[in-house]
């Protein structure tokens, strides 16, 4: 025991200071070199040193193995396992089914259908002898395929054809050309086509909404894609599915508030009117007066959402929500509302409009003829510029602005549609006469067709202001009272007068029903003032007038030729849409003989 400990201490020393053992070693060798074989007992520490050294090496090796495979160190087994798996295990995405968009009755507006996208590994395919076979199956020439292969020669992924019908793709995949694989995806179809294109919007090739309601409700419609683990070989081809990591969650369905039947009618009526008048663009909006739901919303120019190549941005704009313009005379009923509210005027107050001209500041306002004495109801019915301005200038400074603001002009209608415009309604501390005058006949501010429809639905609903909604609302809808009930019914009587024989909106009449509304023919602003030959033809109205349900705004932008008045161009479209709407929503006619049935 004592000798061991001594040798150990020597060995230890030898490790610490190498000199001593080095000096004793040559002595033993010397004696052997002299020829006489002499066994010199080697001190045991030398053997022990070697064994200790070898053990140490094993211990280090073992320690390293433990640290790599057992202990949770920084670059331990987890890291190594991941690295190993990364060489062959891949996570691939399982696409989620995008929710369907439908109209209020469940008619489909946007539907996803499963499709297959064919892709290839160009490096593998380039070596394939079967390029010709593949090309003909794809309907390409061999040259086309080789050009494509050349373009992607340094990549290991290229699409051959995206969004093929599954049966067609299956046929090509059955050829089993090396490097060609299918990938399941979804493609969006829009059965309503152009009629609802602006409202519904569309998705891009990767199934993400990029326009319209597809964009606004993208996260709802989208769902969550799942994932699965697959084993891939050296060439990136899937060898085997290992298991599902996450189940894909289908997107929710979205129901819009529009009625596709009315939407079609509005679409066709607008298209016909635009073709007839040679107008540049146009919009029709129909709103439910009882809850602010949009029942139809169409625009021109249109586009086909199912075939979108060569699309211009101007075609895609949802003008009814996004574009604001100076509305002109259609705002006169709102100016009248401000006057009635002030109690300085009643609808029967007579205004002298002779001689058909009126000077405000440096500007002279004209009526088409001298209407002489008009009641305020007739001022609106005839759309007398002079009458409405004379009335407006007697009102309180802020009266017009206050009412326009309260009724929602200059504010977002609240649909959440991407790019929704709030129009412009500027506030001023002091109003010059000309500013108040222009405000009264609908200039110096801008509104969108949707805003105009919402403003008119305040009159239609008996003074309640609803937020506009593109999806069905849940009763009861929160509304704000902005006009007294009695006042709004007076306004409706005035609006009905516009469609009377003496009014400007005769052509808005609908057989069997009493309707009301207001025409507008606004000069368009251009560089250096208002253009003489560029107009907006408008009609905003409601039906049936006693208890309005449908509020419709028609806008025809820059009609060419002799017909350009709102009463000539826009009113017939209003009549057509309203007639269909009243029938579709089962609203009983009023001006008919009633046949009593007993029991």
């Amino acid at each position, binding site marked *: 025991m004592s000798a061991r400990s001594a040798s150990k201490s020597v060995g230890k020393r030898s490790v610490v200071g190498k000199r001593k053992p080095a000096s004793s070693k040559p002595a033993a060798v010397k004696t052997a070199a002299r020829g006489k074989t002499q066994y010199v007992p080697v001190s045991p520490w030398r053997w022990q040193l070697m064994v200790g050294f070898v053990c140490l090496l094993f211990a280090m090796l073992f320690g390293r193995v433990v640290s790599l495979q057992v202990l949770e160190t920084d670059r331990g087994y987890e890291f190594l396992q991941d690295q190993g798996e990364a060489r062959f295990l891949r996570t691939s995405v399982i696409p989620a089914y995008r929710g369907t968009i439908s109209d209020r009755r469940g008619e*489909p507006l946007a539907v996803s259908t*499963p499709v297959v996208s064919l892709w290839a590994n160009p490096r593998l395919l380039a070596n394939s002898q079967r390029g010709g076979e593949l090309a003909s199956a794809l309907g390409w020439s061999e040259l086309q395929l080789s050009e494509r292969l050349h373009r992607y020669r340094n990549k290991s992924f290229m699409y051959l054809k995206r969004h093929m019908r599954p049966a067609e793709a299956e046929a090509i995949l059955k050829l089993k050309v090396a490097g060609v694989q299918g990938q399941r995806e979804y493609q969006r179809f829009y059965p309503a086509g152009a009629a609802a294109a602006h409202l519904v919007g569309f998705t891009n090739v990767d199934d993400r909404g990029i326009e319209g309601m597809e964009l606004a409700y993208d996260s709802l419609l989208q769902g969550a894609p799942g994932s699965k683990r697959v084993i891939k070989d050296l060439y990136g081809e899937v060898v085997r*599915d290992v298991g599902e990591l996450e189940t894909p969650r289908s997107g929710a369905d979205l129901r819009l508030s529009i009625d596709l*039947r009315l939407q079609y009618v509005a679409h066709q009526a607008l298209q016909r009117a635009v073709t007839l008048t040679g107008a540049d663009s146009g919009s029709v909006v129909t709103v439910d007066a009882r809850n602010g739901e949009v029942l139809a919303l169409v625009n021109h120019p249109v586009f086909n959402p199912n075939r979108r190549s060569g699309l211009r941005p101007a075609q895609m704009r949802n003008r009814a929500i996004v574009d604001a313009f100076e509305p002109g005379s259609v705002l006169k009923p709102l100016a009248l509302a401000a006057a009635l509210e002030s109690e300085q005027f009643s609808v029967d107050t007579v205004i002298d409009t002779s001689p058909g001209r009126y000077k405000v500041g440096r500007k002279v306002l004209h009526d088409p003829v001298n209407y002489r004495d008009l009641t305020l109801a007739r001022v609106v019915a005839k759309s007398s510029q002079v009458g409405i301005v004379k009335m407006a200038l007697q009102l309180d400074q802020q009266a017009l602005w206050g009412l326009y603001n309260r009724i929602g002009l200059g504010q977002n209608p609240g649909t959440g549609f991407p790019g929704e415009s709030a129009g412009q309604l500027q506030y001023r501390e002091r109003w010059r006469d000309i500013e108040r005058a222009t405000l009264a006949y609908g200039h110096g501010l801008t509104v969108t067709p949707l805003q105009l429809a919402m403003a008119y639905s305040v009159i239609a609903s008996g003074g309640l202001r609803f937020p506009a909604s593109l999806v069905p609302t849940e009763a009861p809808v929160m509304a704000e009272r902005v006009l007294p009930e009695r006042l709004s019914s007076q306004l409706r009587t005035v609006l009905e007068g516009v469609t009377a024989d003496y009014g400007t909106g005769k052509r808005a009449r609908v057989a069997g029903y009493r309707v009301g509304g207001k025409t507008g023919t606004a000069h368009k602003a251009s560089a250096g003032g208002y253009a003489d030959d560029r107009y907006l033809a408008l009609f905003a109205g409601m039906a049936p007038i006693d208890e309005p349900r449908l509020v419709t705004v028609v806008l025809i932008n820059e009609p060419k030729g002799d017909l350009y008045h709102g009463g000539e161009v826009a009113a017939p479209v209003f009549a057509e849409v309203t007639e269909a709407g009243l029938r579709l929503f089962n609203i009983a006619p009023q001006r*008919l003989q*009633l*046949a009593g049935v007993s029991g």
Partner: protein
Amino acid sequence: MSIDAYRWPLINLGLLLAAVWTALAVIGATHESRALYARLQNLQSQEWHMQEDWSRLLLEESAWAAHHRVAKLAEEKLHMHPPKADAIKVLVR
């Protein structure tokens, strides 16, 4: 806490059997999971094909039943027209 010498082989045998059993159980469980996953994939592909059929039929239905097509057929084939206002009688109970 000493164990009698004759018990060691028994314990070892027991452990060996347990090890073999768990190994077999792992094989069994792996097989079952693969079989289930294969079934899942099978069902998913069925779902896929049904979805394809469903959406195709939905599109077909909406194309055939489109409002303007029905209106056109009613007018051209069946010679129907919306009633004039004077032809409508409202029945009031």
